[in-house]
């Protein structure tokens, strides 16, 4: 056992039978199961554990919980490296590898410590006042290198995270005395109760002060039906009372293997009881950041819970009666209490210090000796700023400046705070929404009163009754301002960010007097501890320097998260394949077998092409497009958007939705249509076919179907609720196989398609319902490539069967499977636009050659009124045109801009689609061009990244302008 360990019963958390090896900064140590990294370091006599952010001052363990501000470590290596872990909450596990942060080359010899020597020229906000000449760019790189604490992992996180959603009647956050009392009472009153304990065991401070009672209390709460979750820390209250918590499942031990690491709890409760305790407020005195200056409560906790004597000779710097309890505890632990130096006058003390305690009242610490570890301090009376100081030898200073209730959850829920002047603390001003505070976080520090109040509150909330009256909050007298007047040296309010009283004074002097300005200007409270121990001291100091009461200064807003939470915990399983999951084709395996090159199109994972050996995407697409024009091809069009629109008013409704008229279609007929939004902008296009008087088969684009279906629903439910119809999205219900090419029909006939579907029997832009080998089909003759084309819609589970049967006969018809890239080539050759590629969110129907369609329709439709505005009638609008490159060889890059002169100049449009045409043996392109319709034949200049290419405005289609190929080979 190390010299710093205390014998049992000190060390209530320890299992001394289980020795736990770990390393810190490359040195091997040993602790016990139940230790935190901080307690184990203290037990091993490691006093210097970190460096501060700005001045790189030496720091040691300061606190025993989430408020620890000084001992941050990187844990693990490589992909498992976690930066800036709080050593005071990190449970010691075998093989834990930790290293200190923000020092180079080592913790003891840190070059960055030169900043401490320059501190006089580096006051708060110094960087706003200099580095302007010659330019900030000259200085920034070296400042960036200095900044930051730990280092991030070097590869994808191998660990997993998950999420759980829970509903309860009463949620109790915190499992200390008040929390457990509230939980037991609520459960006994019949409520479903969850209790969240941040640490590995319930009990809070009771767990080490009175372990027996803590165990009994937890057991009785559980017997009553309350469920206690440990290592689960509630970090935020969100809208409508949602509480989110993080459960830690593992700490990073020596075995670096993927595990389930953390779990996010999303908890909905009828009532939330906050029982989150309070943070001890540190005293402000010169060099109050030295290793060996610690929060008094932490010193006691390290002794009782971890069996660690943080020092042998202790000076207690006091501003609160709790200091005397601490002093007694430490004496019991065998530590020598040199003196309690109480900033308050004798009369302000609320209790008898007890026999044998030397009290120096009305005094404070005027100096701390020892650089990397406290070796003594000097003490003087407040009334005598120049008077003599007494030197006290000590190796530990326990700082007991009062308490700050942990009002965070109350504030998250929108609660207001009240400043208690005599005790220098903010307490909740009544409940906040569903959040009711009990115990120390409500300002109630008396154990009996807190337990009673918690029980009454728990019972009342469980029964939906009125809340009990709030007991008088208080800790006894505690001064707001704890610094000695006239003291010299750095007196820190925020340890991690090195903010001292001088910085606060400077901020006040320069009129950064809003508490938010103070925070931003000095960075106080912006460290990883988020000001848990600095907040009150900073605002008290600001008040002092700007002549205001703390209540008038106010506090910054507490927002979630209460503690830093890993990004992984928020994300859970929304990673990799489960991040925006892809939509997959019903017959994906068939395409894989054909050697398809898959890409993401919209959210679909589908073949871009089917490259043969030696081919790249583009070569394959050229071959496939040529094959479709020559023989036949098949494409899996299953993603095509499909809506079933049914009802007596279906036709009237679709007339309102489309630029074209739908109601004049006869059953079996189909028509191309464009859908606008209310702004007149082209939102989608597709083919609408009438199946029966009251039923339509509506095709949309693959990417646009959700959007279009949602728009239709909104119009139907919100604007036209009197129309009788339903809209059923059936995209995933039907597979779609599109067979196209001059020999498409011959190919289909070869596998037994009904002769009624032959081109002679079934005209272009018609739809027939048929059966094939017992499978019901909806067969549409429509073409996006200009060839004879059948879009065969069939039950999704028959898609593969049709593909297989076609493929078995493909060779006879020189048929190939073709992908999206070939389709893009084919449609561009025909000058067919692709919504979202040739159009954008500003394109009106007139811009894509639909002006006549708009004029011909007499009735109103969605978006029509917007087409009558001056901007829509502007003759200078950009419209879709076809382009040839002037030399007949050069591919016009998509996105290239059109203008007569080189940039900078005003653009006249841009290239939207551009492919090499295998049919014509030259490139073809589409573009949006200012007044494009009247410029056919004009030579234009196309600009791409400094290159200029000449092009000629022409007319589409490039291929088969007469449309002779649409019926195939016969």
């Amino acid at each position, binding site marked *: 056992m190390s010299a710093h360990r205390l014998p049992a019963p000190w060390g209530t958390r320890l299992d001394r039978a289980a020795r736990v090896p770990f390393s810190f900064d490359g040195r091997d140590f040993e602790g016990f199961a139940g230790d935190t990294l901080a307690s184990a370091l203290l037990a091993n006599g490691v006093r210097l554990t970190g460096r501060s*952010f700005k001045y790189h001052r030496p720091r040691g363990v300061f606190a025993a919980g989430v408020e620890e501000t000084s001992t941050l470590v990187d844990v693990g290596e490589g992909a498992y490296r976690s930066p800036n872990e709080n050593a005071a909450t990190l449970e010691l596990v075998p093989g834990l590898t930790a290293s200190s942060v923000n020092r180079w080359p080592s913790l003891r010899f840190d070059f960055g410590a030169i900043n401490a020597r320059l501190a006089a*020229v580096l006051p708060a906000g110094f960087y706003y006042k200099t580095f302007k000449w010659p330019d900030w760019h000259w200085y920034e790189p070296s*400042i960036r290198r200095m900044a930051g*604490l730990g280092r991030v992992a070097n590869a994808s996180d191998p660990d997993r995270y998950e999420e759980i959603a829970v509903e309860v009647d009463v949620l109790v956050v915190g499992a200390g005395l008040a929390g457990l009392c509230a939980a037991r009472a609520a459960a006994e009153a019949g409520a479903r109760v969850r209790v969240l304990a941040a640490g590995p065991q319930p009990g809070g401070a009771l767990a080490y002060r009175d372990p027996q009672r803590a165990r009994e209390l937890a057991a009785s709460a559980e017997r009553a039906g309350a469920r206690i979750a440990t290592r689960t820390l509630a970090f935020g209250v*969100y809208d409508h009372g949602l509480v989110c918590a993080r459960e830690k499942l593992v700490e990073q031990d020596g075995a670096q293997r993927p595990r389930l690491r953390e779990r996010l709890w999303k908890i909905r409760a009828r009532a939330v009881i906050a029982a989150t305790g309070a943070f001890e407020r540190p005293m402000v005195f010169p060099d109050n950041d030295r290793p060996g200056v610690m929060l008094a409560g932490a010193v006691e906790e390290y002794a009782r819970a971890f069996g660690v004597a943080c020092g042998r000779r202790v000076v207690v710097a006091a501003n609160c009666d709790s200091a005397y309890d601490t002093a007694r505890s430490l004496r019991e632990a065998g530590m020598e209490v040199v003196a309690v130096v109480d900033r308050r006058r004798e009369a302000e003390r609320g209790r008898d210090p007890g026999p044998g305690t030397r009290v120096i009242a009305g005094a404070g610490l005027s100096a701390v000796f020892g650089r990397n570890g406290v070796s003594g301090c000097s003490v003087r009376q407040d009334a005598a700023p120049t008077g003599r100081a007494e030197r006290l030898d000590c190796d530990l200073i326990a700082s007991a400046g009062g308490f700050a209730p942990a009002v965070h959850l109350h504030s998250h829920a929108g609660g207001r705070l009240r400043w208690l002047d005599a005790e220098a603390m903010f307490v909740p001003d009544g409940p906040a929404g569903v959040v009711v505070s009990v115990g120390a976080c409500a300002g109630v520090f008396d154990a009996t009163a807190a337990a009673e109040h918690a029980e009454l509150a728990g019972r009342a909330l469980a029964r939906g009754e009125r809340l009990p009256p709030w007991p008088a909050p208080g800790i006894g007298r505690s001064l707001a301002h704890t610094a000695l007047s006239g003291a010299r040296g750095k007196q820190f309010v925020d340890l991690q960010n090195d903010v001292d009283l001088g910085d606060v004074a400077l901020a006040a002097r320069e009129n950064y007097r*809003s508490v938010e300005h103070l925070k931003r200007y000095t960075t106080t409270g912006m460290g990883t501890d988020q000001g848990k121990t600095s907040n009150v001291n900073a605002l008290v100091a600001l008040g002092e320097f700007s002549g205001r009461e703390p209540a008038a200064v106010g506090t910054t807003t507490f927002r979630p998260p209460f503690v830093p939470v*890993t990004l992984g915990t928020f*994300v859970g399983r*929304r990673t990799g394949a489960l991040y925006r999951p892809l939509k997959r084709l019903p017959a994906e395996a068939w395409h894989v077998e054909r050697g398809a090159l898959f890409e993401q199109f919209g959210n679909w994972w589908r073949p871009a092409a089917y490259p043969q050996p030696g081919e790249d995407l583009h070569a394959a697409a050229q071959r496939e497009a040529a094959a479709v024009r020559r023989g036949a091809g098949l494409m899996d069009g299953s993603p095509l958007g499909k809506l079933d629109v049914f009802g007596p008013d279906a036709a009237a409704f679709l007339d309102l939705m489309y630029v074209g008229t739908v109601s004049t279609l006869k059953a079996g007929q189909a028509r191309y249509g464009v859908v606008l939004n209310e702004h007149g902008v082209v939102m989608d296009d597709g083919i609408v076919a009438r199946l029966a008087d009251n039923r339509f088969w509506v095709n949309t684009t693959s990417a646009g179907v959700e959007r279009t279906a949602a728009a239709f629903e909104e119009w139907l439910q919100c604007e036209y609720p009197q129309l009788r119809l339903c809209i059923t999205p059936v995209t995933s219900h039907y597979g779609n196989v599109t067979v196209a090419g001059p020999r498409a029909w011959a190919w289909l006939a070869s596998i037994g398609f009904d002769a009624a579907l032959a081109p002679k029997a079934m005209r272009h832009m018609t739809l027939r319902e048929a059966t094939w080998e017992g499978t019901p089909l909806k067969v549409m003759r429509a073409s996006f490539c200009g060839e004879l084309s059948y879009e065969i819609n069939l039950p999704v589970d028959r898609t593969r069967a049709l593909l297989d049967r076609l493929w078995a006969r493909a060779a006879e018809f020189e048929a190939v499977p073709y992908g999206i890239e070939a389709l893009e080539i084919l449609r561009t050759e025909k000058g067919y636009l692709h919504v979202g590629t040739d159009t954008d969110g500003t394109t009106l129907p007139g811009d894509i050659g639909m002006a006549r369609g708009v004029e011909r329709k007499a009735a109103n439709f969605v978006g029509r009124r917007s087409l009558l505005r001056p901007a829509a009638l502007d003759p200078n609008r950009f419209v879709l045109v076809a382009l040839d490159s002037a030399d007949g060889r050069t591919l016009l890059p998509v*996105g290239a801009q059109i203008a007569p002169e080189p940039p900078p100049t005003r653009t006249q449009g841009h290239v939207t689609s551009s492919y090499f045409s295998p049919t014509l043996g030259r490139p073809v392109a589409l573009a949006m061009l200012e007044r494009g319709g009247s410029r056919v034949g004009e030579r234009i200049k196309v600009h791409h990244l400094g290159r200029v290419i000449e092009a000629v405005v022409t007319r589409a289609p490039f291929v088969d302008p007469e449309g002779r190929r649409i019926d195939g080979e016969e």
Partner: protein
Amino acid sequence: MTSGYSAWSLLRGAVGGHRHWPPAWPAVEPKSRYDVIVVGGGGHGLATAYYLAKNHGLRNVAVVERGWIGGGNTGRNTTIVRSNYLYPESARLYDFSLKLYEGLGKDLDFNIMLSQRGLLMLAHSRHDLDAMSRWANAMRMNGIEVNLLDRAAVANLVPALDLSPRARLPVIGGFLQPRGGTARHDAVAWGYARAAAALGVDIIQNCEVRAFLKDGARVTGVETSRGRIQAVRVGIAAAGHSSVLAGLAGFRLPVTSYALQALVTEPIKPALDTVVISPGTGAYISQSDKGGMVIGAMLDLFPSYAQRGSFAVLQAILASTLEMFPSFSRLKMLRHWAGIVDVVHDSSPIIGPTPVPGLYINCGWGTGGFKAIPVGGWTLAHVLATGENHPLAEAFQLERFVTGRLVDEAAASGIAH
């Protein structure tokens, strides 16, 4: 100018305990009458006041702020500056702003820490790459430098990005605006405040406007929580609350208020040198000089005046972030906040006269007001001082919602600005 900011004056302070620094801007009581009152002490309002004094010689000017200056969206954004715009009207406006930013530290004698580390837009598909080709070429037409990058160049620039081709949203390229980057947001507000105050502008905090004083239809001042203040002209620059103020003055705006979230992680040693924006995932990220990863994303999905974000959107933001940077999964979120932004259908601003005589407005910047602070102030100051729209603001008038002549960057580029 009061006390100049320099390394020399810091040295002087080191000797004297930094007691020589005067207030950056003095706390003053409102006068009863000003030539111009600017409502809103954010970046835009303070810049307006500064340029009123500097460009137009109007020094009898007050900025009235409900809370503390820079406490709205100026202090709540992700500090990105850029001018990567498609349309000439927007490109001119935002590039002018970026140019003002480039000289602002010296102009204001306040280091705003403009860090032009480059702004990278990621393409996740060939379709994205085509859209970015259009975008980049349009920027070049507008005279703004930009480079299209292939995958290897992106990998070189941002080694922490997941470049696996099997990623759900693989990175296949992108474009880089070298002049894009970040600036220190608070410094912009404080720098403008200090420089404006030095020219005689009164900056009045904790002063809420409760009504507009009118003479007939014309606005003649404001009724505030600190009394009645008269003015010849009044300008509004109160993003997030534009509609509330318009309502007090008796007109409506084409604006809806939404929460926009952002967050910062704990500080780590440098791991990301450029600003990375992924239109495909909606997330954007940069590393601050202090070391925190500053992350922002899309708007919340319902109208709100609450300065807190939806947890559902937060989870989506972070999922997108980790999709790009899976090694950041063990990093911890430190702070998370939201600003209330003016959302306009075409995501472009409104800078000019209102239907109420004597009252002018600068609003509607949506998610991107920070980068426009200099030009927003410059152009609002112009119309307040001269009664004429600044040429840069001509396309950004309320009238465009009637004519339909929107400047719809988002619709054209497929990304919210």
